[in-house]
């Protein structure tokens, strides 16, 4: 309360009443404030009541609102993950059942009929496993990735189960700096991505003026930071702002806009992989501005003056917009195309004209052979995914070397023998492994011991034949045997020697000849290993009474089981993590609420004390005013 100075010479009547009025007004106003605090229960009703605390209250309210969002997300993710857990539990039981059936049907005492009826059971489990894959939770197919609005597993036209979902699992934010996936991918559970032929070659596309800076790996593979660079030529220098540059063309335009000052001109280097800067006269340097890395990322950092500069490779990534002709630094990819076989479906994909990678991929994807072609995550090459569980994917040449260039040929002359037959390799025996009989009846044997690659095998055959008899297929895949001698095609054959399995493993044995040519098989197909494949294998092995097949399938199912159990563990751990976070947020909320209450709510003890103090003060004012106002000398005048 403000204090009035009382050292006044005289006290007039008006002074007396005005002092009383103002002190009463003040007391009454304060009483009203306290009354308001007491009736609303809040000390701060609007920010100006206490701007400092008001700002903190706003912050705390914001935090609480944000956390409510997190709690909603956690609750939703927990529900989704619980439904994942339930479906994984069912799948675990199913796989256990399958292994039990398999092990019960391995022994020699089991009859073929018993196995056939077991096959019916497995077929049932197989269908069940597909419905597990299509588990739906609140309208979402939980294994569909970011295509979860449709069933992810459908029956393919060429047999098997086709995966039409994606393996991109959705993530969400569950707390500040806590981003977690709340789905499980079809690959994690069903092994859908195991049938992927990953392109082994880095496609290194050339840059064009349209190439986006975002699509560059950057000279040090750390991306491109869009900042400023400084070009100095003798006494002249210019700072060039590339923060608004979107493409290589923009960067060149901006550098060249300063040519008047720097006498330096930029262009794409002849090799198409980097920027080249040339000075009209003198020597120039290119330096960073303010600790940025723009010049380095664009491969043009040059601290010592030079007259011309051919920058470092900016490592352009492959994007859907990359032209096929710009791949390999502008060398392009052979347009002969690919021969793709997936199970019983085959397709030839060729292309003409300057098309983009996306258009090429579209042609593969439109071929309807149950594959999905895509750019790999790093943007360095392509990969072809076999979408169908139960079929084998083979990618070969179509007379040229497209597949080899893209690194997606499933079998190639340089391939290690150990990689063939799904990693089982080529089984050789001591001594000769294959015997080749020509059309004229002459024969020779080949010992394949010591051959490491398919190329080695071809060399050994040719050496043993004494002529160029073996070669690698130019169309499709496989070793091709060409017989120059004369005689009926039926005489020309490749057979095992010393009971060796090598010829079979190489895909040569027992194949018919046509016009003196035996075309070997592609023995390095890509196929999906996983629940559906293994169950189908088991079913088929039981039907065909194939004990070895039953054992193999059973092993596969055991692996699946382990994987599913481990995914279930991970899911459980994630649910636990979310629950832990939920508890923590709830605890934090409690603490925040209490802080908020201590700031915003009325402290009743203080308020009530204040209220009674003010009440007494008002009473005192009223009483003294009444007394003083009634005193006057006039009353004593006679």
């Amino acid at each position: 309360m403000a204090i009035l100075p009382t050292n006044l010479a005289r006290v007039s009547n008006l002074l007396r009443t005005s002092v009383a009025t103002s002190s009463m007004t003040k007391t009454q106003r304060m009483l009203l404030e306290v009354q308001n605090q007491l009736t609303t229960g809040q000390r701060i009703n609007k920010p100006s009541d206490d701007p400092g605390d008001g700002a903190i209250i706003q912050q705390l309210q914001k935090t609480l609102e944000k956390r409510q969002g997190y709690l909603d997300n956690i609750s939703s993710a927990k529900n989704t993950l619980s439904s994942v857990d339930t479906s994984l539990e069912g799948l675990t039981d199913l796989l256990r059942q399958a292994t039990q059936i398999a092990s019960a049907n391995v022994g020699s005492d089991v009859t073929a009929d018993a196995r056939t009826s077991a096959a019916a059971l497995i077929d049932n489990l197989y269908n069940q496993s597909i419905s597990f894959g299509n588990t739906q939770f609140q309208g979402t197919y939980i294994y569909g990735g970011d295509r979860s609005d449709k069933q992810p597993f459908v029956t393919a036209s060429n047999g098997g189960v086709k995966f039409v979902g994606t393996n991109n699992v959705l993530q969400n934010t569950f707390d500040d700096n806590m981003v977690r996936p709340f789905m499980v991918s079809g690959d994690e559970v069903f092994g859908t991505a195991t049938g992927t032929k990953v392109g082994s070659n880095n496609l290194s596309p050339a840059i064009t003026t349209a190439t986006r800076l975002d699509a560059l790996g950057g000279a040090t593979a750390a991306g491109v930071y869009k900042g400023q660079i400084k070009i100095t030529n003798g006494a002249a220098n210019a700072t060039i702002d590339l923060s608004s540059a979107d493409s290589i063309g923009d960067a060149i335009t901006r550098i060249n806009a300063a040519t008047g000052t720097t006498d330096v001109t930029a262009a794409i280097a002849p090799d198409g992989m980097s920027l080249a800067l040339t000075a009209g006269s003198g020597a120039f340097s290119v330096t960073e501005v303010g600790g940025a890395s723009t010049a380095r990322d664009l491969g043009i950092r040059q601290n010592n003056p030079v007259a011309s500069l051919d920058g470092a490779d900016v490592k352009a990534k492959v994007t859907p917009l990359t032209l096929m002709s710009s791949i390999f630094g502008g060398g392009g990819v052979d347009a002969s195309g690919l021969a793709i076989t997936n199970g019983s479906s085959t397709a030839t994909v060729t292309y003409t004209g300057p098309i983009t990678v996306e258009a090429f991929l579209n042609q593969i994807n439109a071929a309807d052979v149950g594959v999905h072609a895509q750019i790999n995550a790093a943007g360095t090459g392509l990969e072809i995914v076999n979408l169908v569980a139960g079929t084998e994917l083979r990618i070969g040449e179509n007379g040229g070397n497209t597949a080899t260039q893209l690194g997606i040929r499933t079998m190639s002359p340089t391939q290690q023998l150990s990689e063939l037959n799904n990693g089982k390799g080529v089984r050789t025996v001591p001594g000769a492994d294959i015997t080749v009989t020509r059309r004229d009846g002459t024969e020779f044997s080949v010992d394949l011991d010591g051959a490491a690659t398919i190329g080695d095998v071809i060399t050994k055959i040719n050496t043993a034949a004494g002529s160029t008899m073996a070669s690698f297929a130019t169309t499709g895949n496989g070793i091709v045997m060409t017989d120059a001698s004369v005689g009926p095609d039926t005489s020309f054959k490749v057979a095992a020697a010393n009971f060796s399995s090598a010829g079979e493993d190489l895909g040569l044995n027992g194949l018919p000849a046509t016009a003196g040519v035996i075309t070997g098989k592609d023995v390095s197909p890509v196929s999906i290993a996983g629940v559906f494949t293994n169950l189908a294998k088991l079913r088929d092995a039981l039907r065909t009474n194939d004990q070895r097949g039953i054992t193999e399938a059973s092993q596969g199912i055991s692996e699946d089981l382990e994987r599913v159990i481990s995914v279930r563990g991970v899911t459980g751990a994630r649910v636990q993590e979310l629950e832990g976070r939920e508890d923590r947020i709830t605890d934090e909320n409690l603490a925040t609420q209490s802080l908020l209450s201590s700031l915003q709510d009325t402290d009743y003890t203080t308020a009530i004390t204040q209220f009674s103090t003010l009440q007494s003060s008002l009473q005192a004012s009223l009483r003294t005013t009444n007394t003083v106002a009634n005193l006057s000398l006039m009353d004593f005048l006679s």
Partner: protein
Amino acid sequence: MSLTGALSIGKTALAVSQAQLQVVGNNIANAGNADYTRQTPKVSTSKDQQFSQNVFIGTGVQLDGIQRQIDEALQGRLRASVSDSNGADTEQLWMSRVESVLNELGDQDLSTQMSTFFNSWSNLASKPQDGALRQVVLQNGQTLADGFKDLKSKFEDLRSDVADRLRALTDDADSLADQLGELNRQIVTAEGGSSGQAAGLRDQRDATLKKLSELVDVHSIEQPNGSLNVYIGSEPLVLHGTNRGLTLREDNVNGKINTVVVFADNKGEAKATTGQIGGLTVVRDAIDATTNRLNDLAKNVIFEVNKLHSSGQGTGGLTTTLGTNAVDDPALALNDPVTNLPFKPTSGSFVVHVKEKATGLVTSTLVKIDQDGLNGDDTTSNDLAADLSAVTGVAASIVGGKLKVDAASNAVEFSFSQDTSGTLAALGVNSFFTGDGAFDMNVDKKLQLDPSKLAAAKNGEPTDNQTARAIADLETTVLGALGGSTLKENYESLVNNVAVTAAASKSNAEASHVVQETLFNQREALSGVSMDEEAINLMRQQRAFQGASRLISVVNDLMDQIMGLVR
């Protein structure tokens, strides 16, 4: 020296006592009048009469004048404090109205609406294809837009209230200035060269001046002839008997009417800094600053959300889309000021995806946007339409300044992504919000009609959630356009500004009241009437009158006796 002399002394004493009683009476009568200045009679002894050599004898008492007990300097300070406290009171009153419009610290305020909006995007990320969650996002978006519009219109109302009040106060101030001119004339006439003061008129003038001080901070200089010149700042308002007059001028500032108080004769601004008019001017500026910030914030919310949304995709593709923002001249570069786009695109590019519905195959095309002002090849709206039309599967045109993109056939649909230039958002193509500020913000009607167009995805997959997450993250993203603060922080600082101004005006008001009271008390101590004092004066004058009457009676007796000698 004679009895007659003594009788005349008694006469002067009676007359002076009567006059003094009249002054006491006047003081008592005005004891309750706060504008009244206590008067005291000034008396002196009459000139002596020579009785004999070296002997002088008194001739009684005379009344020299009636004095007003006033300290003009104190009056000036009091008037200044009256201006201050009235200004602060006005500010406090109106700022609390501004603050109540914002209605912060509750759960229905704009900051909560913002949180709810961004939270709903985050929730949508949990289930991107869920129609109900999409509706929630749209509903919360509209609530946020309505929140902005509501605040904006309330501020506009408040602003027009301020203008109305300003008009009324200016009229009052003008009529007070008229009265001052009139009083000046009357005082000059009444005092007409004499040394005495027309106390009543001066009290009236002081009171009028004080009333004027309540409205506007004036200062005054008294002229030798008794008239008072009144100034606002350094400009005179009342000179002698003339009032220059106060009126209002309406200035158009950035499309807004600014009401300014001006002198009637030359329409020059009367710069009031305190007083109710000064306080209102401060409040009006504060409302304008708050409204502008609110509008900026709305603009940023619209643009930032739209930038992300326009590069995102719904569960299905687009078959037609019409931009919501029109360019004035499609032949000019998009960021040319003449195009009048509310948001300016920068150099960059975006990708158009055309999807064959039957096969699901997507063909992408890069569309380059050049806005660097170099080489004279910056992209115009016409260029953009031509570039888009060159993409197989889409046809684009400029319709009424707006970009219209259509699928070329029923077999295809299209979508946009990776817009680094902000062009799509600037043109309002595939946008979430329409409008360019707080007054016309809305959720795009197209989305409300077809929530599947709400873009939660970024990679073109139907149930991707990356755009939804990016928009949710916008709540905590630091934006260069807002000086390195987030949308939420920007709003908080706006609220805090208002809170701090309101709190400051409140404590200002309290402080200036104390000053005013102190000065008023000082004035009262000097110029106020004390009844007790007047009672004592009354008694004294009563006794003096009785004494003088007694003197006359005694002299009369003596004269009777002398007359008896004659008989």
